């Protein structure tokens, strides 16, 4: 095994992750497909031989088209999934929002979910109590805090999830399209908070389709293309690589802030 310097925060080494797509769910459908000689299932690689290392304190923008494997990569780094082959190593505590939205339980109230989520992220009861007011204030969802999150709007859901994740004393922070559903004031608040995280020297992994905010937040861009690492390096070149630099859009109205905030493309 290779040894890594103590400043290494994340190691992704030749990682492959495949998914099996099952086309048929019922026995009858499967039998029919088998008789007709059609595929019952199909395996494909969502991530294929991806390798890179991240130093502590780096801020990475992860870009790529829909379905290119960004969320899958984040799930591997976060530990929700394990790679089929290759290794993922991380140093320290990880927090963040994976694949738009928190792991909340729809029947529980916002308050209960905050405690549960914090416990999953490794916070103790005392720590959660201490931070609860800050979390509630950041989420700013008012009286809905005591109603089941199943009834939340997707924006409120994301707000609360982000609020919890951001208050964990993590060493690595993962943010997967956190800003996709937030309103403008909330997006600004999040960006400011992530900027704070970045300045505090924590490793930041930020998935976004918005070139502007990547440019502002990140000092390195990684681009995935159909599960392969297509680009790893400088931010401006990376954005050029994915062709998100706003030179090809017809509605060329780069009200700079919109771009920064992740106006959907």
């Amino acid at each position: 095994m290779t040894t890594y310097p103590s400043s290494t925060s994340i190691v992704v080494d030749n990682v492959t992750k495949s998914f099996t797509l099952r086309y048929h769910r019922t026995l009858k459908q499967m039998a029919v497909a088998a008789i007709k000689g059609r595929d019952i299932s199909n395996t494909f690689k969502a991530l294929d031989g991806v390798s890179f290392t991240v130093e502590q304190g780096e801020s990475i923008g992860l870009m790529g088209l829909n379905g290119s494997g960004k969320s899958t990569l984040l799930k591997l780094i976060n530990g929700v999934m394990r790679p089929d082959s290759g290794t993922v190593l991380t140093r320290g505590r990880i927090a963040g929002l994976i694949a738009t939205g928190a792991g909340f339980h729809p029947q529980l109230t916002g308050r209960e979910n905050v405690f549960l989520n914090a416990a999953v992220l490794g916070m103790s009861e005392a720590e959660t109590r201490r931070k609860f007011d800050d979390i509630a204030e950041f989420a700013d969802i008012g009286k809905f805090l005591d109603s089941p999150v199943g009834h939340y709007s997707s924006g409120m859901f994301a707000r609360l999830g982000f609020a919890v994740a951001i208050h964990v004393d993590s060493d690595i922070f993962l943010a997967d399209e956190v800003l996709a559903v937030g309103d403008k004031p909330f997006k600004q608040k999040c960006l400011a908070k992530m900027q704070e995280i970045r300045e505090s020297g924590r490793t930041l992994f930020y998935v976004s389709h918005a070139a502007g905010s990547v440019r502002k937040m990140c000092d390195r861009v990684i681009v995935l293309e159909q599960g392969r690492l297509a680009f790893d390096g400088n931010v401006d070149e990376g954005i050029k690589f994915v062709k998100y630099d706003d030179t090809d859009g017809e509605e060329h109205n780069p009200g700079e802030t919109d771009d920064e905030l992740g106006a959907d493309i």
Partner: protein
Amino acid sequence: MTEAGHVVDAPLTPPAPRAGLIEVFRRRYLLRMLVQRELSARYQGSVLGLLWSYINPLSQLFIYWFVMGKIMGRSTEMFAVHVFCGLIVVQFFIETFNAGTRSIVRNRALVQKMAMPREMFPVASMLVSLYHMGPQLVILTIIVLLTGWTPDPVYLLGFLLALAIIAMLGTSLALMFSVANVFLRDVSSFVSILTNFVRFGAPMIYPYSLVDARFGSFAQFYLFNPIADAVLLVQQAFWVGSTKDPATTHAEHIPDNLFAYGFLALGIAAVMLLIGQRVFARFENRIPEQL
């Protein structure tokens, strides 16, 4: 928070939790939260709340006492208590098995997005079922006390043995079937049918002496069933002491060497638990993507 030049004093490790059941007990706070959540969700929006968990067993007790004891006139002494002892054990088992099987699919919101030992969910289901046993135990104790129960410390230890057997057996099955249920949702329906048979595999609505009389030397195979042993241990703890002549009842209705069979059952349950953990770990990888 942390100042610039953030130094992390931790080793580089794979981020996915790996230690299985041990990790579950290391993270007791999280486990407690999951159990509490399950309990509060159960009676949410009901006026009587926790009272239901007293009403339900009381009504069952009444049915057995009235229908089987009075109408059908079963000759077994203190028949309702006899049945109730079995009911407590069997329900603990069935509930653990059923709820545990469904636990991972039901918690998919968490499983898909958060890194945590997923054995948490079947184990939490077992603890919830254990908690629900509390009210039943209270009712049982009150009733046998009213009928002049003479407790026996050794037999009461046997009751704890029974709990340990069922807790381990239930958890092991819940572990195995909860993963299976992720891949094929039919599994939970299958399990609920399977558990219907459990009631009849244990000496509940019939006394053990009947098995002994009908099957003779084959009765020992019946005693290889850990659930039957657990039921008998509970009957030994509560029912025997509530009859008029405990010594005779014990000689007549409780098999010799029950404790030996009990420890054998505990051993079987422990092995099952190891297998359950193995099976779970083997397929756990694929859980989040199949949900």
